[in-house]
């Protein structure tokens, strides 16, 4: 496979880092020169190459790209489910070596435990965190309240609507207080209205609790609502095409599209993504 990864052209490839004037702290999450490859019968195939990302504490980075561009693979490498073929992932300056509770993850298919009710699902990650049942119960209660599911604690998973199940998954993840929250297209399967509700709920939780988030999506609007920074990925092999700060400041709602300049920004991202269905570089003027 031709490794046409010579100096990708992002104008500001480390733009995911916020202004250094704001924080001199080392980024909470660092991905350095990540390569993920897998072995087929004949050869080694790169799924992801040369991915570097920095996310400061309290910020949200969106990985945006078409399906198959490797954005979920990057997330899985951060989670520790995939081992880098090259490069490394650091959380709070510690090398990631397998999954761990410092990196919570909300999966697209949620994977709520059907044998538990809502309360017990949210309590799942608290076993080794809080010594007594009463404390675990209390912590779960408060997170159920924060995702506005109070009153539904004893409901079973199969009784929940898509949006409610999503809230349970988020509460279960956040109750365990991970330092980094990883979200893999969590709202992709929701209807438009519920999705907007969930995006705004997430935005509020992020603001209220200073959460650090890596959010994978293929939806440009979602990236511009959720992300403080956006890293656009392209495929074959997966790599970062361009990274930039979200020009629209917090607090952002789904009405962010009304802000001046939104159309141009979206069009530019669309070109970046669209251009990468071919192996051509985009925007080479």
């Amino acid at each position: 496979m031709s490794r046409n990864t010579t100096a990708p052209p992002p104008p500001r490839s480390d733009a995911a880092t916020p202004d250094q004037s704001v924080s001199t702290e080392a980024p909470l999450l660092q991905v350095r020169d990540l390569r993920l490859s897998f072995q087929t019968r004949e050869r080694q195939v790169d799924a992801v190459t040369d991915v570097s990302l920095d996310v400061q504490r309290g910020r949200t980075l969106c990985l945006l790209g078409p399906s198959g561009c490797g954005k979920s693979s990057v997330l899985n490498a951060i989670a520790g489910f995939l081992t880098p073929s090259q490069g490394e992932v650091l959380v709070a300056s510690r090398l990631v070596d397998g999954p761990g509770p410092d990196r919570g993850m909300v999966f697209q298919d949620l994977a709520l435990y059907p044998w538990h009710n809502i309360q017990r699902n949210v309590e799942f990650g608290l076993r080794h965190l809080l010594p007594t049942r009463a404390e675990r119960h209390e912590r779960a209660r408060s997170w159920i309240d924060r995702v506005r599911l109070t009153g539904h604690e004893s409901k079973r998973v199969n009784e929940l609507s898509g949006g409610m199940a999503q809230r349970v998954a988020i509460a279960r993840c956040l109750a365990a207080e991970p330092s980094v929250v990883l979200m893999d297209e969590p709202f992709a399967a929701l209807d438009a209205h519920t999705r907007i509700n969930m995006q705004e709920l997430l935005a509020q939780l992020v603001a209220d609790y200073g959460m650090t988030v890596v959010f994978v999506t293929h939806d440009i609007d979602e990236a511009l609502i959720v992300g403080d920074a956006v890293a656009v990925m392209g495929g074959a092999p997966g790599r970062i095409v361009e990274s930039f700060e979200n020009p629209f400041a917090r607090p952002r709602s789904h009405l962010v599209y009304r802000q001046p300049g939104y159309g141009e920004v979206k069009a530019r991202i669309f070109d970046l993504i669209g251009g990468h269905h071919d192996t051509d570089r985009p925007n080479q003027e």
Partner: protein
Amino acid sequence: MASAVASARPQAGPDERRRLTPPVRLPSWLLPIGSLTVTVAVWELVVTTGLVSARDAPPPSAVLAAGLDLLQAGTLVNDVLISGRRALTAYVVGSALAIAVALFTGRSRVVRGLLEPTLQILRPIPALAWVPFSILWFGIGEGQKLFVIALGVFFPVWLNTHLGVAGTPLRYLNVARTLGANRRDLFFRVSLPAALPFAVAGLRQGIALAFLLLVAAELTGASTGLGALIAQSHLLFRADRMVVGLILLGLIGAAVDFLFSRAARRLVPWS
């Protein structure tokens, strides 16, 4: 006014006509009891009218008399208790062993590699085929009966539980890992509950097999139990007593299955 009401009556029915069920609600027990009564009545009638000889098919009245007779002699209760104890003991031993083995073969690749080939070759052997062999090992006695029944129960319970544990959805395990689960947690708090519906399906198949093998074991060389009652009555040409044994097996089997499915619904309400 009165005439208007009177003339409205017969037409009261746009509603009535749309109704799919008859307006009078039958009590839910009526149909089952009714059908049982009719079955017994037809059976009685067929024999008393001479359509079928009473020697081949004793009428319900004769069966009832034979049953009361055995009940008074004290042997019937004894037979039921002994059969029940045999089946239950062997069932518990066989399924407990099966679940324990399945947890290891389902979770550990090494244990699976070691045990699965043997188990997969033994599994298709009908447990009935073990009856003569078990006599060779244990002689005719309680041990032999327990062996055959437990062996028969073991395989469906093992296979189902094994598949359930081995097939624990990866996403359940991955979520647990991001929530700080250690190996113990992955086993007891994820794989085990995820396999529970499968284990329950296996346990239900095990019940049917336990009954089958109980009777098979008791028909050959036992002096007590419902199978023995049938076998001995056969030697004495007592068809009425044989039918007592058959009906009791049917009633007990239906009751056990009913109780099990209710218990299963409480144990795995999500499946």
